[in-house]
């Protein structure tokens, strides 16, 4: 066997390895995109034919086989509203406390961080059981939008807090010192400078939360229930969109078309809400940059 030149061999091997590696990373990236496109395509193809304005506003009939998802959309939005109304102020307050009021490496704060990280990984069904036991039974809220929203608030709080805290900790320390050196109170510094500066992280946390809450099924079955009537108040039971999709595809034969159309709406809803969150935050930011 003829010995090949050292240089040749290494170049040849290097080229092959390099090509393989390039192929691998491109392939992996393409695979991920393909999966997303497949899901979207599937939902679009199967759902679009079923979609109409009527479907969006009408009440479901025949267990959802016919009719629409009007009341379900309303319930979904109300649950989300309750969840955000509870989670955002509480979450921001805890994040501010963690980032601004605790000593670095303090034991109590660290145990809270650890708790939050564990809670962030708890499966949503566990939140559902907790919500059922605490909000529905113990607090007597029953199966209601309020119980469901509060349960979702518990679920999204850990990630929201940690994201906001990270955002606040990354705010330039020079601004903090600058504000205090001007004789500004800590409250003003946080409110006027640090929170706006951390707004991108807060929006990221909000988007994660909205996505998780809107898509939630397990935590809601036990808390907000699955009554598909139009809710009269926050204490009424109401069916969330994700619960509806689950019900249609698992329990209702012949409900697949409606399930696909509902899924399409759910995806659209998340896109719209995220865009809205981003837009609101940008407006808030620019209002602060420009004179308020």
């Amino acid at each position: 066997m003829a010995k090949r030149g050292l240089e040749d061999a290494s170049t040849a091997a290097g080229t092959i390895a390099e090509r393989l590696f390039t192929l691998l990373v491109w392939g992996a990236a393409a695979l991920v995109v393909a999966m997303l496109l497949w899901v979207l395509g599937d939902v679009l193809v199967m759902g679009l034919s079923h979609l109409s304005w009527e479907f969006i506003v009408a009440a479901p009939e025949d267990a959802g086989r016919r009719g629409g998802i009007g009341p379900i959309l309303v319930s979904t939005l109300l649950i989300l509203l309750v969840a955000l109304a509870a989670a955002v102020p509480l979450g921001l307050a805890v994040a501010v406390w963690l980032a601004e009021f605790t000593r670095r490496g303090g034991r109590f704060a660290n145990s809270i961080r650890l708790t939050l990280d564990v809670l962030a990984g708890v499966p949503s069904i566990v939140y559902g059981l907790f919500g059922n036991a605490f909000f529905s039974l113990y607090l007597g809220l029953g199966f209601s939008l309020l119980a469901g929203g509060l349960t979702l608030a518990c679920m999204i709080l850990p990630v929201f807090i940690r994201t906001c805290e990270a955002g606040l900790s990354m705010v330039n320390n020079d601004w903090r010192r600058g504000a205090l050196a001007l004789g500004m109170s800590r409250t003003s510094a946080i409110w006027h400078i640090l929170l706006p500066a951390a707004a991108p992280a807060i929006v990221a946390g909000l988007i994660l939360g909205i996505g998780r809450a809107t898509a939630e099924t397990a935590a809601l079955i036990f808390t907000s229930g699955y009554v598909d009537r139009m809710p009269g108040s926050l204490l009424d039971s109401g069916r969330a969109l994700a619960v509806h999709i689950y019900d249609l595809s698992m329990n209702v034969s012949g409900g697949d078309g409606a399930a696909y159309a509902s899924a399409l709406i759910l995806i659209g809803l998340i896109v719209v809400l995220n865009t809205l969150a981003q837009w609101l935050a940008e407006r808030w930011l620019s209002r602060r940059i420009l004179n308020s």
Partner: protein
Amino acid sequence: MKAESDKTLVNSGPYTLGEIREGTPCCEPVPHLQVRNLSVAYGQQSVLDNVSLDIFQGCITALIGPSGCGKTSFLSSLNKLIELAPAARLSGQVLFDGQELLGAPVDVLTLRRRIGMIFQKPNPFPLSIQRNLELPLKEHGVRDKQLRAHKIETALRDVGLWDEVADRLQASALSLSGGQQQRLCIARALVLEPEILLMDEPCSALDPIAAAVVEELIQRLRGRYTVVIVTHNLAQARRVANYAAFFWMKERVGKLIEFGQCQQLFETPGHALTAAYVSGASG
């Protein structure tokens, strides 16, 4: 209540807004801050030991010495910003117009309005130029919009920034150049009409031309404000300062070696360490 707080802001301090007065003799040996036996430690680590000196009214006092000898700790003891470090422990006395700052409870918000601070790295807030100046004014109770606008314009004129930014007050302060940002920060301190300005190496993060502009500005503050400036640039200290304090590390603790009139300290230093440092032989 509102009017009252405005009034105290306008009338506080011996100076009024107007043209910055220049000229020599630029300052009188009236002590504005009297530091007595000041020691600073972070936890167990002592960083500054038993420093006593007077900061004279209307004068520029330069703090010189090698890095790590406690100059910045000294500076931030004067407006108590050092308290941000939870482990910081101070002992001794600092008298501001005769009022004790360290032992007694002090309203730090008012203290820091009267004693402004400029940092090494320009730190304008990520807000508009106008809002950078407006925020501290609002914070200190200046509710009248016109009065605010007037104060803002005056402060920007004082630092020579007005002509450069008058037509874009709503632009982000971060869009300014480094030198402009530092002058904005000085304006942000001046807008509160402080009596004393603490400057922690205000030129060292700037390019030479911007540094020269800021240095000239500092010169012009003389007489109207009491300035304490930390600088590693000995030539700058010599150019701007009336008094100089030389700090040095002894047994890993910062000490004040010599304090006196700037010219004297540079030309006829009273201590061998000072002589070696100012001649460039050590440090």
